[in-house]
């Protein structure tokens, strides 16, 4: 279902500013994210990282500057087209899992594909596959209240990646979890990255930032440090294709270290 796009970058921000009333949350930001990257956007609260998340997620529009997502200039798209863009190219994971209570894990994930125009039967098949990928293949029928926090967040991750998005945006994905559950979620993100998914983690947690190959530090609406896309996109195997050619060791190992470090 992934469509080819001509631009090499999943995300491209050029001179992006965003003001709310008189407050300038972002003051001219440039950022490019290549296909297959795993990066952290890190900064204290009020630094503008949430605004970046909203702009990259096309949930909001910049006051000035260009935002290109998956090759589309966001400014030229209507609200309907932006919705379609989100449905097709973006997956979100939030700090508060946002799962529907009383609905099974399978249907929570399947509902993530509701706006892609996929028939119900196919949605459920893909949901089952996505839950399998996050290690919850045995919990398809469980409702959110029957799952641990880490498991709930993994369901949310499965929902975000079920459609094979070009970019997975995770907003403080471990913020509501204890360190063991947080490590569990990071391990899943690491595995997805290893399999080719482009992931941007928005966090204020330096440990999680350190875990990512690329860190973008934001402060007072500006990018103050970018460790750079250390490695180029490996052939663009993104979009959830089962490209398990990338070495799986790295992300998982870091996650395990993190789990050890944080669990003291």
């Amino acid at each position, binding site marked *: 279902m992934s469509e080819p796009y001509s631009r090499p970058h999943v995300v491209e921000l050029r001179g992006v500013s965003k003001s709310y009333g008189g407050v300038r949350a972002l003051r001219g930001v440039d950022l490019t994210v290549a296909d297959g990257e795993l990066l952290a956007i890190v900064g204290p609260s009020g630094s503008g990282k949430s605004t970046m998340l909203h702009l990259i997620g096309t*949930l909001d529009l910049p006051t000035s500057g260009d935002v290109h997502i998956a090759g589309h200039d966001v400014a030229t798209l209507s609200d309907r087209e932006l919705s379609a863009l989100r*449905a097709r190219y973006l997956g979100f994971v939030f700090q508060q899992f946002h799962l529907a209570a009383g609905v099974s894990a399978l249907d929570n994930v399947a509902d993530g594909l509701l706006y892609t125009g996929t028939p*119900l039967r196919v949605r459920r098949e893909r949901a089952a596959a996505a839950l399998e990928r996050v290690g919850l293949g045995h919990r398809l029928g469980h409702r959110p209240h029957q799952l641990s926090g880490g498991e709930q967040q993994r369901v949310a991750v499965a929902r975000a990646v079920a459609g094979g998005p070009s970019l997975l945006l995770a907003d403080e994905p471990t913020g509501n979890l204890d360190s063991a559950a947080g490590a569990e979620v990071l391990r899943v993100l690491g595995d997805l990255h290893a399999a080719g998914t482009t992931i941007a983690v928005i966090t204020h947690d330096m440990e999680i930032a350190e875990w990512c190959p690329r860190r973008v530090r934001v402060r007072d609406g500006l990018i103050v440090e970018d460790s750079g896309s250390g490695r180029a996109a490996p052939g663009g195997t993104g979009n959830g294709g089962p490209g398990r050619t990338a070495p799986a060791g790295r992300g998982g190992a870091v996650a395990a270290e993190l789990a050890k470090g944080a669990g003291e």
Partner: protein
Amino acid sequence: MTRDRRPAPARLSPSDVLRVGAAGLRSRPARVVLSALGIAIGIATMIAVIGISSSSREELLRQLDRLGTNLLTVSPGQTVFGQDAELPTGALAMVERIGPVYTAAATGSVEKATVRRTDRIPEAVTGGIAVQAATTELLTTLEGAVVRGTWLNAATERQPAVVLGAKAAERLGITRAGLQVWMGGRWFTVIGILGPMPLAPEIERSALVGFPAAEEHLGFDGHPTTIYERSSEEAVEAVRAVLPRTVSPENPEEVEVSRPSDALAARAAAAGAFTNLLLGLGAVALLVGGVGVANTMVISVLERRREIGLRRSLGATRGQVRVQFLAESLLLSALGGVTGAVLGALATVGYALSRDWPPVVPPWAIGGAVGATLVIGTLAGIYPAMRAARLSPTVALATA
């Protein structure tokens, strides 16, 4: 700069719209039941009002069918000088000679006589019972029934024997044949009591004696005051046209002809009229129910900002969010409407059966109820749905 084609949102299939709408309801069952109840009460009231009045009308129509509409009565009108006219003594025989008439009978009012339980009761206390002479065909012509004793025959019509109408017997306190009543200064024996006569209520309030007996014992002048006749159904109008001239060739304008079943038909037609007030009451209940649904939906939108934000992040368009909440509102009121229609129909059936009426719930009433429900659901849902769609996704997600 190259750019691939613009992303187009996918359409939600109707079944997905239903699923999404129902999902919102399933998570709050108690609230759903309570707000659907408002609609249900309104719909049930309207259906029951329409159903019960329709059943009542159906009962009248069936009664009409049973009694027939081919009965005509002839009675004297007034002369050109404003005095009461009389029918000629030979009028009955003339009516019997009209071709399509297959049965005819006459009654004659015996003005001077009263009927009392005993001679000790003052003459003024008549109980509103008329003393009438009757020909022996009367029972056949009116298709009446004798519930106690017998009807007059060729022998008893010459004797001081009396048959009482149902109401007359009740007022005199007579429950069986064989008792005696005081009429016109002598004792008459009650030989029979009649059943109800829906087409001739005046007979129910009469004490009937034979023509010869009335002339002999009660000073009756022999002039009939009412002639009853039945003809074949299709000849009724033709018979009606010739009756005045047949009965009274010299003064046909002094003869009045009427069709007793017309009164019943008029009652059937009027049976639905006085229900407008009750229908209005049901409509008010329905309106209040609609306000309840709107209220529930507004609260639901406020509570579910995060869900709306999530759906927008998953790629729902404003239109799809709007449709979701409209569907929810429609489902909610449809639930109330269906429940109300069932309750209203049950109430109608129960009431009709308790009164021995044929239960009738007109399909147009059910259709109207469904239509009203859909209108209410849409009206109640529009504003909350607009609010939900207008919600900015970032604001919705920020409300933790």
